């Protein structure tokens, strides 16, 4: 085994911390949705929380916080195209000369 036992023990502790934080954030999102915030605020808040949860899962559970260069490279490329895919279609729908019939 590459990493020694002590190191694994240490990461187990961080897994537990993340677990607790994820639970707290889940409760937070649900609670926030009860306040009937203005729609843009609510969307932003929910997505910010989700992004924070997601990055915790990725960086700790999936060990992305210390991964190899090849993997960072591939993921960076993916993220760029992911954002392109997410936003350019909707942007081009907004920059369209047609109107709903």
């Amino acid at each position, binding site marked *: *085994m590459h*990493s020694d*036992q002590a190191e*694994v*023990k240490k*990461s*187990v502790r961080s*897994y*537990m911390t*993340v*677990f607790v934080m*994820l*639970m707290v954030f*889940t409760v937070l*999102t*649900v609670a926030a*949705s009860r306040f009937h915030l203005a*729609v843009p605020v*609510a*969307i932003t808040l*929910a*997505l910010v*929380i*989700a992004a924070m*949860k*997601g990055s915790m*899962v*990725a960086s700790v*559970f*999936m060990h992305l916080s210390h991964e*190899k*260069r*090849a*993997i960072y490279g*591939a*993921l960076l*490329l*993916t*993220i760029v*195209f*992911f954002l392109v*895919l*997410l*936003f350019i*279609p*909707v942007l081009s*729908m*907004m920059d369209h000369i047609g109107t*709903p019939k």
Partner: protein
Amino acid sequence: MIIPYTVEARPDTGLHNGKLGIWLFLASEVMLFGALFSSYILLRVGAPEWPHHELSVKLGAINTIILISSSVTMVMAWASLKMNDFKKHRLYLLATFALSAFFLVNKYFEYSEHLSKGEGPWHSTFFAIYFTMTGLHGLHILGGMVVMAYFLGPGAGLWKKNPEQFTNRIEITGLYWHFVDLVWIFLFPVLYLL
């Protein structure tokens, strides 16, 4: 013939083949779900109005908690192997399997309630998206369960023969599983709360 670097890492990349392979697979999954999220945004922005609170936040929140817990048990199943504790590993893996089964049962109740109210995918754009996205996510859960069942059953023998390779495989399964969890972390607010 033996393929190099199936078990140990290639020195210059620091990776074994499976690790790179699964990350590339996950990259493609990001694009798959990316396309669905993109469709969601496009259709929602174009819709004159969008339904709110159609889904049971309670069931969704319970499922979120289940999946997050299963992610933790999954990573523990791997960490136990790293600490050479096979028994504990099996317990954690079994727990993960059980949690994913709960998730699906929960989903089943949720689906059948909507279907009985006539709120199938044909009902509206919202339900179309809801069923497609959660359905595809559910299939991913099911796929993960098949893999876990394999490592609980016939696949477990590898631990005796080649513990390092077995640990790698569990790590890879874990990476996939965390990804499925991660998708849900976004699906939950997007579908249930907004």
